[in-house]
């Protein structure tokens, strides 16, 4: 079997594992949908100021919750599942087989990207059907590219963070302590215009805000042109590269206890 066929196969079995795990499905798939309902129901009638003009809050929250969904499908899910696979000795067992490690890793990342893309499409459909959010058509290519770059970069960061997670139990708290504050200051829950400038500056250092703003650009009806946010995408990709380098340096295949 070629390595490409092996990767496709790995992806297929990883998908099976993912969809059969109720905990993963709830936190990754159901929870963002619940958040979308809550935020649009509470704040949906208002407008918010984005880039000097008003947009509907429902239009704001679709890319915001899509960012959250990409975060949980990649960063959160991978940090937890990789820590678990490592501590259970599954990664160690994989290393004893002829499967090349990059193929295994590609399967995991591929699963996260696939779930991210599915979720963004799902959130978009809900936004369109229930809240009349307009579908980005001329910015579609930029939207797809943003999801792919964001999901890949956040996956790499998950590998980097997992290297420092000491046990299976520590994975969720570690992932949350990184994700939650960043999501708050990046405008995912509270519109950016209501966040103090100092906090926005902090958020600008990290990739979440850039991912969100790239997606917001895709959904913003007033944007003309293809909607590619090159500056944001470059910062996201840069973070992904840093994550990949840290992972190459520190990622371990054997349980920490051994």
């Amino acid at each position: 079997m070629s390595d490409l066929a092996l990767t496709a196969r790995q992806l297929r079995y990883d998908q099976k594992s993912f969809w059969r795990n109720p905990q993963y499905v709830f936190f990754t798939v159901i929870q963002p949908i619940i958040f979308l309902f809550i935020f649009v129901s509470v704040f949906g009638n208002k407008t918010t100021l984005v880039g000097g003009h008003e947009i509907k809050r429902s239009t704001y929250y679709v890319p915001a919750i899509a960012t959250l969904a990409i975060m949980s499908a990649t960063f959160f899910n991978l940090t937890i599942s990789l820590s678990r696979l490592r501590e259970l000795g599954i990664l160690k067992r994989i290393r004893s087989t002829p499967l090349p490690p990059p193929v295994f890793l590609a399967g995991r990342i591929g699963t996260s990207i696939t779930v991210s893309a599915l979720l963004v499409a799902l959130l978009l459909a809900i936004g369109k059907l229930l809240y009349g959010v307009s579908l980005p058509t001329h910015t579609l290519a930029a939207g797809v590219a943003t999801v792919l770059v964001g999901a890949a970069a956040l996956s790499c960061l998950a590998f980097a963070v997992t290297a420092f997670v000491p046990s299976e139990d520590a994975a969720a708290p570690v992932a949350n302590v990184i994700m939650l504050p960043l999501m708050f200051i990046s405008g995912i829950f509270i519109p950016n215009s209501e966040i103090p400038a100092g906090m926005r500056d902090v958020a600008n250092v990290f990739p979440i805000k850039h991912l969100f703003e790239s997606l917001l650009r895709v959904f913003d009806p007033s944007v003309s042109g293809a909607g590619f946010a090159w500056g944001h995408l470059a910062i996201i990709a840069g973070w992904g590269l840093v994550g990949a380098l840290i992972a190459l340096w520190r990622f371990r295949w054997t349980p920490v206890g051994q």
Partner: protein
Amino acid sequence: MSTATGPVAVPPSPERYLAPSVLSVRGLRKSYGATAAVDGVDLDVRRGEIFAFLGPNGAGKTTSVEILEGYRSRDGGEAEVLGVDPRDGTRSWRARIGVVLQTCAVQPELTVAELLRLYGGYYPAPLGVAETLELVGLTEERDRRAGALSGGQQRRLDVGLALVGDPELLFLDEPTTGFDPAARHHTWEVVAGLRDLGKTVFLTTHYMEEAQALADRVAVIARGRIVAEGTPFDLGGRDHAPTTVSFQLPPGVSAGELPAPLGGEPRVLGELVELQTTTPTAALAALAGWADARELELPELEVRRPTLEDIYLRLTEQA
């Protein structure tokens, strides 16, 4: 093979000693800080044998095995597994070995058959799923999720996953630790079945009963060194070791009244008399004649050969 009695190891046939070596280690060394975990180990495992590597926890057993599996580096010595230095374990080399780690799990959401198919796909010439299920006795569990299996079934799945690539050499690290006796015997049957397939098995265990039941040859490691090597029957001079005859003194009889000579000096511990002898038949004949003439019965009469465990404890305590 009968389920009631479990597998019985037969003394190895002479051809086995002529079989080529599949694993060869000379002067293996590994230290952690100032402690030498493995301190000059030599080993040879021949094709088609079940080799048991015994030793107390912390004796260097797992470190040695993990060096041979390619997981750990070594500080010194030579190692060759299937003609390859495990240090540069290549993909094609990994395809020829199977590893069952001491603690390892599988993706609990996948079924037994799915896992065997998934892992089988990693190897160039895997066994069929049905065949592997048959070998490890999990045919009825094929569609159950791995997370729902009992401990014994999961362990057999571990063996199945190591076996599905049809490897020449299998490493089994403590395959039955924590099992109830029935599950242990079931796993032994699976391992003994590997011999019939012509597989070479490198087994670590701290159950002497397991080594006795399965192994063609055993080596004992203690404090990083090999302290004895042989078959389960002659390890540490077991075949020449004296037999113990013991009984209680019948009421009203003192030790001084016992017949002499008995082929050994009896030790009297309260009521209990214990005799170490290399001529147990003569000793028993003398004792029986003596007791019979006095119309006495010897309570708790026992004749014991040293078990593998007795030998093992002696070897590992001395070291």
